[in-house]
């Protein structure tokens, strides 16, 4: 059910995104930062699901809050002539890699456990 909703959402988003008008080039920088922030939230969400403390409210607020906050900070940085968006990229992408590493380890462990169990079962069968 959840996966279906995600896939449908992605498909509709891609379809409309391909056919929609483009934004002015100046604002594409802000949109890029917002996308990175949102992606960070998504990986954070997956990490939380693995840890079994996923909370939809926190996820949604992080998704939109981070995106909007990063846009505002980038704007502020542009006004102050400081490349704050660089800091945002470092933080978000760094966290993304962290979360990805944790997710990878989790699934790798699962995979190894699964194989060991299979081996045990095979051994049991042979013994029988």
């Amino acid at each position, binding site marked *: 059910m959840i996966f*279906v*909703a995600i896939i449908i959402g992605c498909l509709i988003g891609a379809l409309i*995104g391909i056919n*929609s008008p483009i934004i002015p080039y100046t604002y594409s920088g802000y949109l890029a930062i917002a996308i990175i922030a949102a992606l960070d939230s998504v990986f954070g969400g997956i990490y939380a699901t693995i840890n079994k403390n996923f909370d939809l409210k926190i996820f949604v607020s992080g998704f939109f809050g981070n995106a909007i906050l990063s846009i505002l900070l980038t704007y502020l940085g542009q006004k102050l002539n400081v490349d704050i968006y660089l800091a945002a990229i470092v933080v978000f992408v760094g966290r993304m890699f962290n979360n990805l590493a944790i997710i990878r380890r989790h699934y790798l462990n699962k995979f190894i456990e699964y194989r060991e169990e299979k081996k045990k079962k095979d051994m049991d069968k042979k013994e029988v």
Partner: protein
Amino acid sequence: MNKKQICITLGIMCFILTFAICIQIRTINTANSTASQTLTDNGLRDEVLKWKEKYDNAYEELKKSEKTLEEVRQKATKNDDSSSKKEEELKINNTLLGLTNVKGSGIIIKLQDANENDSLATSDNISKKLIHNGDLLAVVNELKNAGAEAIEINNQRITNTSSITCEGNVTKINGEKIGSPFEIKAIGSQGLLYGQLTRPGSYLSLMSDDGIIVEVSKSDDISIEKYKGVVNFEYIKAIK
């Protein structure tokens, strides 16, 4: 929160994310640039785009006002015999000045810089393998000599006030930059134009000897757009 709500929220969020990514990718693709990370570069680029937009808007307005002018003129000359004659005269004058879209039979010349490794080219002077403003001038001259009534190079109409100049590594006609390959359209007597331009010893034959790719073709349906600028004068006065 029940499961349905969770599904809908996640779906909407995925929608927003993919939507944003698609738009971003398309924006970057159309901006057609090597990735420049500095916002100052973006600012400069944006300024150029803004000016272009302004120019386009102004041009559109000019077109509109020209249309209304035409309508007003037609209304004024509706019930008047003498002014309708004037109207016709005006039309002829505008056509002569290159201020109207015209069509007719004539020839199309396609010119392209010589291939770098073309060993057939007799000249080893690399400059001769490129098309310069002087070459275009010579071709236009020959076309006019052969009685061409309307000439256009890469969508730039050649009028009384047009100049063909060399600006560094580009050619400018009517103040607009154009570059190789060139497509020269000319309306006039097909036989005369074709014969004049393809005769042995013509400027085009000299150019093709140097390796420049020349292609001349007749066409019965050539349409040439009007001059997009404004023609005005300050110093000349008619003698009565």
